């Protein structure tokens, strides 16, 4: 997730806009939960190459996302409010942060059995101890923020 979104935003965020994000989050949370990709067991199954399920989910999501992104670019699709859609490149320097950060994330992904989206869904799913995991994830982001100037990127 990048948030380096440069989309200009109305100075006052309208409540309706925020409700839309809430609704999209709810839909996403339901999909993540019902497809069982928030399951620690399913993540273990994936890293052991013992089921196609996770690969099917990720693969078909990327395929649909890629075709959609291509169509948006090709036909210069606008946002609902009529603004041009900016699809920014992911910042890339030497790749150190993708390799080191990515691998670090992967260690945590297999340990907790969840990435950030599923962590939120698990919390809603009643696994209360996930609150600690999320808190520690925020601490990890905080640590990165402070260490960023001295880490290779």
């Amino acid at each position, binding site marked *: *997730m*990048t*948030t380096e*979104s440069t989309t200009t935003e109305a100075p006052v*965020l309208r409540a309706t806009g925020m409700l839309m994000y*809430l609704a*999209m*989050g709810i*839909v*996403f949370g339901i*999909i993540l939960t*019902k*497809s*069982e*990709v*928030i*399951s620690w*067991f399913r993540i273990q*199954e994936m890293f052991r190459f*013992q089921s196609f399920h996770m690969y099917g989910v990720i693969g*078909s*999501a*990327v*395929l*649909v*996302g*890629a075709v959609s*992104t291509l169509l*948006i670019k090709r036909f210069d699709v606008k*946002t609902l409010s009529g603004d041009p*859609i900016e*699809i920014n490149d992911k*910042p890339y320097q030497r790749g150190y942060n*993708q390799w080191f*950060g*990515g*691998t*670090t994330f*992967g260690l*945590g992904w*297999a340990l907790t059995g969840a*990435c*950030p989206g599923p*962590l*939120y869904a*698990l*919390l*809603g*799913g009643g*696994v209360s*101890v996930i609150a600690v*995991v999320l*808190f520690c994830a925020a*601490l*990890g*982001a*905080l*640590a990165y*923020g402070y260490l*960023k100037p001295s880490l290779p990127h």
Partner: protein
Amino acid sequence: MLDVLSQPWPWYIAGPLIGLMVPALYIFAGKAFGISSSLRHACAAVLPSKAAYFNYNWRQKGLWNLIMALGIVIGGFIATTLLANPNPIALSDATITDLSALGLTNFNGLVPAEIFNWQNLLTPVGFLMLVLGGFLVGFGARYAGGCTSGHAITGLSNLQKASLFATLGFFIGGLLVTHFVYPILF
């Protein structure tokens, strides 16, 4: 209808729906889909910080992402109550065999109840998996510039080299833990 929705959703339904989050967010809001930046926004919102990384207008840049994260929590609640699947997850036999060999016995629910509980937080295994694991997820996602949603879904959908390397990194880390750390841990 609820009966159908209550069944586990197969990958060919769930995957394309997740993929549609990408254009939906572009078209409805002009935003790039991603979740892990919510962790950064939460830090920026809560802590007055000297680090440049947290000095930006989080309301303008990140409030939408935090609201979406809240929505995911609510979605998780709805899916496990209204749409709850009464049966255990249909894991492959090979996985159950492997995890049983590690000493796990309870395969009900979304997470292993033997590990994911408050009492376990201060045991070595619980601390490593929940506390350190959570830290690594947050640190790694921000260091890599995205998580599975931002890099593996949105970034790969946009054919980004950075996202390909990050996603390969995700799997390298995951495979290391699964095949080298877990056998030692349990």
